[in-house]
Structures are given as C-alpha cells and as structure tokens.
C-alpha cells in the first residue's frame, strides 16, 4: 500500500477555518499556560505578591492605573496579584471534582455491563438518590456541618455529578449491546476488565467523557462563585475569583465596573480555554465521518 498520500478537504492553508483553528490553539496555550505559571509562581512563592496590601489612595481604581495593572478592589488591594493567587483556589480542587465525577461515574456506568439485575438496581437507586437531592441543600449542609473549605465544596460537586456520567455511559452501553458488540466481545474471550476499560470506556466513550470533563470543570468553578455570592465560598482574605467577583458586585451598581468584571472575565476566558481544548482533542480522535 502506498503511503504519504494526502487528502485535503476544503481546509486549504489560506482559508478562514485554518486561521481560526490556529488562533484557537494559540489562545488555549496562552490562557492555560498562564494559569499553570500563575499556579506554580504562587505555590512556590517565586515572586512575592502582596495580595493583602491595601493601597488606600487607589481604591476601586480602573485598570492601567499607576502601580496596578488591572486596578484595585474596594480595599485598594491589587487585582492582578489577587487574580494570580486566586488560581490556588481552583486548579487542584476543580480537577479533583472532575476526576471524582468521571472516575466513579464511569465505574458505576461500566458496571452495568454485567447486567446482573440486583447490581443494576443498586446502581440505579444510588444514582437516582444523588440526582434527587437538591445539590445546593447538600452543599449548604456540608458547609454548615464542616466548614467552608473549597475541597469539601468540590467533593460535593464531584459526587453530585456522578449520576450524569453514569447515566451517559450506561446509555452508551445499551446502544453497544443493541449492536451485539458486547456479546461478541465476551464470546471472543475478552476479559471483562479489558472490555469495560478499553473497549467501552476508551474506544466508545472517550469523546463523551472529554466533553463532560470540560463541562464539569466549568460547573465546579461556577458553583464556587455561586457559593461565594451566598457567602459560603472561599473565605476572605484568601482570594478566589468567586469572592473577588462577589465583593466587586457590591460596588457595581454605583458604576465601579472593573473590580468585578476582571475576575468574571478571567473565569470566562479560562473556562473557554478548557472547552476549546476539549473540542480540539475531540476533533483529533473523532473518526466518525462528517
């Protein structure tokens, strides 16, 4: 067979689509790269940031004012340093929430392959139970019982996302079963572990899972901002983007737009980058015809 043949669809090098894709990749690299850099800088304290220092001469100053690139908040604290430090609140907990949801979700979903009736029932009841519980109540109760720690919050967010993933995967399994794929693999002598992990989760569900991971990240971070609004998120003076937006909005209606807009946009740009990365990955591995 001859190699190195090329097939080029409409995507010629000068087309709009091509430049669009390049921009997307550069965008993702820049945004996620700077998040990771900010995270490492603040974790290892490579550069000292005075996130708590109050500059009373420049309260609620707009971006690009003297000494403060992104302006200051209502106490005159530098927004840029707080933004960098805010990554601490999200990166690890957010990834934790997503991995909990995906790991246990695929575990529960995957277990339905074996189709023993009682196992299915137990799985169904436990996912239904999680789904029925209003998530916010659970969050509020957990915060009330323990403390307003971001890890507890993300744990609850992750756990309450399990049913969605389990449901997606078990529906996917039903479709595969319909096509006699699972029966054929079992008849082939594929070990059950290989069947679930490799054939079902990896080959047939990875697109779904990657999409859900990006969504889950968004949900986790937005959940924390919502909780911050109610006063249960990460507690001041430790900065998180959620409580920065929250404290900023108190002054928004008087016309001080910047101190809440900047962290809000930061959240949006980072989440968009996560989404675009998931889209790029999906495009690369999706081999179904257009």
């Amino acid at each position: 067979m001859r190699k190195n043949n090329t097939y080029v669809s409409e995507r010629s090098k000068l087309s709009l689509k091509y430049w669009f894709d390049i921009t997307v990749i550069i965008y993702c690299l820049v945004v996620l790269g700077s998040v990771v850099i900010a995270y490492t800088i603040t974790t290892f304290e490579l550069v000292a940031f005075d996130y708590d220092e109050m500059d009373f001469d420049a309260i609620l100053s707009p971006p690009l004012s003297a000494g403060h690139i992104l302006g200051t908040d209502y106490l005159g604290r530098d927004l840029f340093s707080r933004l960098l430090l805010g990554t601490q609140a999200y990166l690890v907990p957010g990834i934790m929430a997503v991995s909990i949801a995906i790991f246990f979700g695929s575990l529960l979903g995957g277990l339905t392959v074996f189709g023993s009736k009682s196992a299915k029932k137990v799985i169904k009841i436990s996912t239904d139970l999680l789904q029925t519980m209003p998530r916010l109540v659970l969050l509020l109760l957990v915060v009330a019982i323990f403390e307003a720690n971001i890890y507890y919050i993300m744990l609850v967010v992750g756990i309450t996302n399990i049913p969605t993933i389990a449901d997606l995967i078990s529906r996917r399994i039903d479709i595969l079963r319909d096509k006699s794929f699972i029966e054929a693999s079992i008849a082939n002598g594929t070990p059950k572990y290989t069947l679930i992990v490799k054939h079902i989760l990896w080959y047939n569900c990875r697109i779904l899972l990657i999409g859900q991971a990006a969504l889950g990240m968004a949900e986790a971070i937005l959940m924390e901002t919502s909780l911050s609004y109610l006063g249960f998120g990460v507690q001041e003076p430790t900065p998180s983007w959620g409580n920065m937006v929250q404290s900023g909005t108190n002054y928004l209606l008087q016309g001080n737009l910047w101190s809440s807009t900047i962290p809000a946009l930061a959240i949006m740009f980072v989440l968009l980058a996560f989404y675009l990365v998931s889209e790029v990955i999906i495009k690369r591995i999706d081999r179904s015809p257009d």
Partner: protein
Amino acid sequence: MTKPILEVKDLSVRFFLEKEKVLLPALNQISFHVNNNEVLGIVGESGSGKSITLLSILGLLQANPGIISGEILFNANEANINTLEDISSHIEIENFEKADEKITKKTNTWNKLHASRYKKILGNQVSMVFQNPRLAFNPYYSIGKQISESILLHQPNTDKESAKKTAIDWLKRVKMEAPELRYNNNPYGLSGGLCQRAMIAMALASEPSLLVADEPTTGLDTTIQGDILTLLEEIRIQQKLSMIIVSHDFNVMHRLANRVLVYYNGFIIEEGNTNNILDYTSDEHHPYTSLLLNTEFNQHVDVINKTKDTDNSQSKSFFNQCPYYNNCLKVTPEISNKCQSSIPPLLPLHDSHKIRCWRFEK
C-alpha cells in the same frame, strides 16, 4: 436501440484513512450500463467494492473524499441526467498517475449539489435493498408504517388507507405469513430473514424503474430464496423493472442476471453475458473467475493448496501492477513483466465478453 436506463462511466472512489494517512482506492474507473428491463449481476469477493458501487449510484456515499471522478447517467423520461455533472470543478487532483496524489475536494458544496440532484431520483427512479436489513429499518416505527411511507412519498394521490392496503399486499407478495399482523410489527421483533423480505417489499413498493439489491437473498433459506427469486423475476416482467443484483451466489446470477460483472479489489476484472461468465468448462476466464467457478462447480479441485507464495515486500506500487498479480497462478514468463509493470485494460474477447488480463491480449 433505446438508451440504457443507467450508465456509469469511469467511476473512481477513494477513501481517506485518517490514522494511516493513506488514500484507499476503493473503486477504479468502473464503467458499466444497465439496459431497460435487464438484470445486471455483480459478483466479487468481500471488500471488493460492490456495496460502494451501489451507494455511489444512489448518491449516498458519505466518507471522505468519496467519489472523485466519473459520470452516472440516469435515463429519465428520455432525458439523461448526469448526477456527477460538474464534479471536476469541486475537485482537484494532482499527479493522478504517480505514486503521490493529492486530492482536494470541496465536500460541503459538493454534497449539497449532489443531494439536490438526487431529490427526484431516489425512490422514484431507483430504490435499494440494503445488505443488512435489520439495521436498515428504523427500530422505532413498525415495518408496515415504513413501507406505506415510501408508497405515500412516491405515489401521489394515494391516501393512508389505500397505502396501508398496498403495503399489506406487498408483504403478502414477499411471502410474509399473517401480513396484517406483521404490518404493526417492529423490526426488532422480526428475524433476519423476515426483515430481508420486508426490505424487499419496501424497495419494490415505491415502484422504481431500477432496483438495486445488495445481496437480497443472503439471509434466507433455500425455499424462500427460490420464492423471492421467482417474485423478482415476475415483477421484472410485469413492471418492466431493471435491476442490479449483488450476490456471492452463482445460483442467483444464473436465475436472474442477463449480464454479470466480476469485481476484484475495486476493479471490474471480467464482464460478459451470464452464460459466458458461468461457463465453467471454458478456459476463457480471468484467473480469479476460474478460481471462483472451480470452487463453486468442481468441488474436487483443492483450491487451498494452490495459493501462491509471493514476496509482498518486493511488489511494487499497487497502481502499477495487475490487481490480481499477488495471487495469480497463471502468470506465464512471457507476460510476467507486463503483469508487474502495468494494469491490464479490459480486453474484449467476443460478443461483449471482456477480461482484464494480459493473457488475452491479441
């Protein structure tokens, strides 16, 4: 002489395998025609491109880049419609002859144009029996509904009641027992053979002038097979139907087909009248056809031991040798060089019997 109802000229299809970055030649310059009220049979090994040919004729080919050149002419109301008209303006091919080829296809605009051209042809002119009938029925509607749907679509001024009656009538004609009950059955409630028959009923119900059938008798047992073949023959005579029938089964060819094409690896390697092709006593066959005929009719021939030891690593570019060279047992020293360095053309033998093999060069 009237014009043929369907004419295919130089149809070439490529598939792009993304992972391997290879363009797979699925069909190479296929040309044939189907006359009015004639049955054309296609035989060939699995994966030789038979289904792809049928899907291309119906404009249903989806993977990239798909059809890259050729003409498909439908003769409708004495006017020829070329559904691949203008395809060259949507496609750029560089170095078609050389090893490295680059194909650029504007898939989006092409698909739209293609679909609009086929709007009037599908169902009215041509309908298809799919290879895998269980998957080809929508599992969420009863088969009866799907059959009467295609009646309602293609026969204007029929109401629902009469469509239902006709559908039941068709189910009866394909030898479904209790057709009134089967009308409400869903596809998953039918066996493969029953689905096959319902599929044939659905394809015939829209009363096309060309029926394209992809292995219509594979899932059926011998008695039903005979019934279905009789039915197809009957309908062909009654309704002046033309057909293209794909099958592995020489028996089907023998009973139905007027002419037969033999496929190998995306090439037509032999074409001719049925009695010429199926004449296993004759020696005027392509080596692959003789192999097929021998396995079918002279079972004592031990084919398995007769495979050739070829050194695949030495074989040159696929495009520049006879497609059958790697398995051919009839290469003689005189033509061996030719076989290795060029693709033989379809060489005419006598009354429209053509063979793609250098042995028959005069």
